[in-house]
């Protein structure tokens, strides 16, 4: 495996008599999104502050590309940090807050600084708040200002300390989507501390589980699903119960439990159908109308999907950032095709709600861009002796376009 970008070797940290981290070992790899999960007050922020150098370990070593962190000057560490409480300068305007790192650490001219800052603020839908002070804007906007400030210097590593705290479900997913999109666009390494389980899995390449002062798991979200440890019961399951806010659908784990339960109880029948729905164009919607608009569309379609298939005994989950999976028990392929066709037909009514959201977003962002969201659907027949993941993979391969939602541009009458 590649050399870790950041590596903790037997790191311990104590505050007075209280041990917060005890012989912690972990690896963070370049250009990945790594998420640290754990209960509140277990030292996740302490761990993050060790990476940026705000705290020093009592024992152990932290390596950056194989070199101990204490041997590297801080100005040579291409890192940014987004604080849990934002840490915005309350006596400065939004513009001044975002411009500060460029003004103080680069030799860029005023015009170039202005161009970069305004570009970031527009990406974050903050163009209207440029001259406002942090106390004059909402908590969600403050979060986005902090995110803009963290990204304005184009850092190689960005540390996010609970970036979605205090946000509503749509905004939480919008922020996570934003992080994922920027990570793909700019290619930085992202390290997140988050409670948003399972939503955070969709954007993470690796999960680190902090439990009992140690890292008890490191691996991919898929590997984490099979991880058996008291941590899962105490932390993940309790958080998952609270995390169906966006779409109202099952989490992936709950989905699998229900699938296994129905399989064992024979409720799935001799054969069942799996439908995989993928939304394409979410990034385009986010880029032109904002991340809120893309998440609203995602939420709206997810809620409708759950309601539609739930009424006929099906159950669904959000399988990845833009993909929904539905299981239709005791249904053969022909029946399933009819049900999906009916769903697509009913979706036409739902389209208007999404177009209304977009129209509002267009007005907010003063954009006349016309965006398109494409829904693909694929079906596969499953048997009780077959692994659900392979059925999902077959359904994914069979996907074809079933619906396109295109916004109306009032300006040119399209």
């Amino acid at each position: 495996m590649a050399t870790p970008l950041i590596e903790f070797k037997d790191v311990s940290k104590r505050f007075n008599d209280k041990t917060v981290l005890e012989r912690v070992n972990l690896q963070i790899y370049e250009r990945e999104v790594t998420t640290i999960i754990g209960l509140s007050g277990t030292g996740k922020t302490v761990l993050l502050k060790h990476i940026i150098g705000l705290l020093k370990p009592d024992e152990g070593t932290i390596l950056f590309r194989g070199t101990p962190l204490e041997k590297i000057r801080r100005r040579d560490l291409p890192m940014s940090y987004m604080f849990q409480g934002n840490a915005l300068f309350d006596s400065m305007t939004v513009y001044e807050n975002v411009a500060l790192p460029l003004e103080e650490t680069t030799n860029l001219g005023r015009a170039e600084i202005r161009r970069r800052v305004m570009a970031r603020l527009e990406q974050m839908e903050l163009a209207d708040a440029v001259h406002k002070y942090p106390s004059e804007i909402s908590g969600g906007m403050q979060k986005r200002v902090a995110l803009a400030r963290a990204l304005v210097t184009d850092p190689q590593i960005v540390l996010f300390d609970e970036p979605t705290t205090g946000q509503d479900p749509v905004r939480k997913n919008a922020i996570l989507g934003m992080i994922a999109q920027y990570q793909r666009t700019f290619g930085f390494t992202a390290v997140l501390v988050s409670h948003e389980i399972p939503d955070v899995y969709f954007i993470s390449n690796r999960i680190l589980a902090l439990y009992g002062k140690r890292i008890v798991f490191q691996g991919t979200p898929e590997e984490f699903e099979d991880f058996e440890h008291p941590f899962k019961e105490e932390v993940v399951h309790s958080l998952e119960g609270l995390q169906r806010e966006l779409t109202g659908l099952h989490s992936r784990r709950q989905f699998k439990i229900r699938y296994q339960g129905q399989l064992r109880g024979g409720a799935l029948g001799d054969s069942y159908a799996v439908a995989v729905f993928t939304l394409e164009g979410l990034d385009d919607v986010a880029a032109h109308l904002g991340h809120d608009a893309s998440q609203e569309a995602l939420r709206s379609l997810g809620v409708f999907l759950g309601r539609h298939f739930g009424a006929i005994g099906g159950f669904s989950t959000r399988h990845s950032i833009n993909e929904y999976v539905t299981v239709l028990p005791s249904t053969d392929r022909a029946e399933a095709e009819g049900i999906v066709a009916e769903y697509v037909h009913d979706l036409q009514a739902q389209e208007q709600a999404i177009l209304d959201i977009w129209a509002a977003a267009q007005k907010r962002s003063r954009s006349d861009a016309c965006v398109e969201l494409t829904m693909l659907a694929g079906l596969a027949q499953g048997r009780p002796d077959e692994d659900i993941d392979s059925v999902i993979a077959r359904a994914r391969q069979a996907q074809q376009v079933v619906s396109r939602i295109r916004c109306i541009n009032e300006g040119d009458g399209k």
Partner: protein
Amino acid sequence: MTPDTSPEHASRRPPVRWLTDPFAALGRRAMRWVDNLGASTIFVSLAVAKIFRPRQFMKILEQLWLIGAGSVPIIMLVGLFTGMVLGLQSYHALVKFGSQGALGTLVALSLIRELGPVLTAIMITARAGSAITAEIGSQRISEQIDALGTMRIDPLRYLISPRVAASIISFPLLTAIFDVIGIIGGYISGVILLGVNAGTYLYRIEASVDLKDVTDGFVKAIVFAVIVTTVCCYQGYFAHMRTDSYGARAIGRSTTAAVVISCVLILIADYVVTSLLI
């Protein structure tokens, strides 16, 4: 179990705690004081060294406006009434000896050598020093100073150095304003209200005040500037390290401590500097 009352055991027993505890507490306090003294010396030395880094000019100008220009009205007001009351009291003391002609000398030397630097420093501590502690303390508690560190901006260079530089520049200038306005105040009460001869008042000032008096006053002002900004910035910068309080209360206590410590140190330093210069 029977207690061991042997002489050997008695000698091993810890001394009576009520006897030792006050000394232990005093020792801890002394250690903490020495610790803070060392830390604040390093703190201000680093801040002074970083005054001459790039991008400091505008920040120093901004602090000059806040600490210096912003304090002019209050310094003028206090200077005027200090001079007036000094003129009034001195006149009634001198008139008993028939020496009211020496009023100008008394007012000018008192103001230039002592009252000017000391009262100016105390007034700036009350007005700007407390604001410095509260502002920096609030930035510390809300993680704004940590945020500077994560943005690779040196908090000492960005926050402390401009304030130290602005204080070193503005304290002597404000002291000069205080002295001049105080002498005018003495003129108002002594000459205009009590009838001392105007020519005598001004001549005595000119004859008795040396350049050394003025420069000694400025030396004191610079020493006070370093003391006040060090104490006020240090108290705010380390407000989160207080063990007696947290959050907003820590800022409040740090501000109180900054003002009290600054005022006490101004008076102590005044004696020390005077004894060295005299």
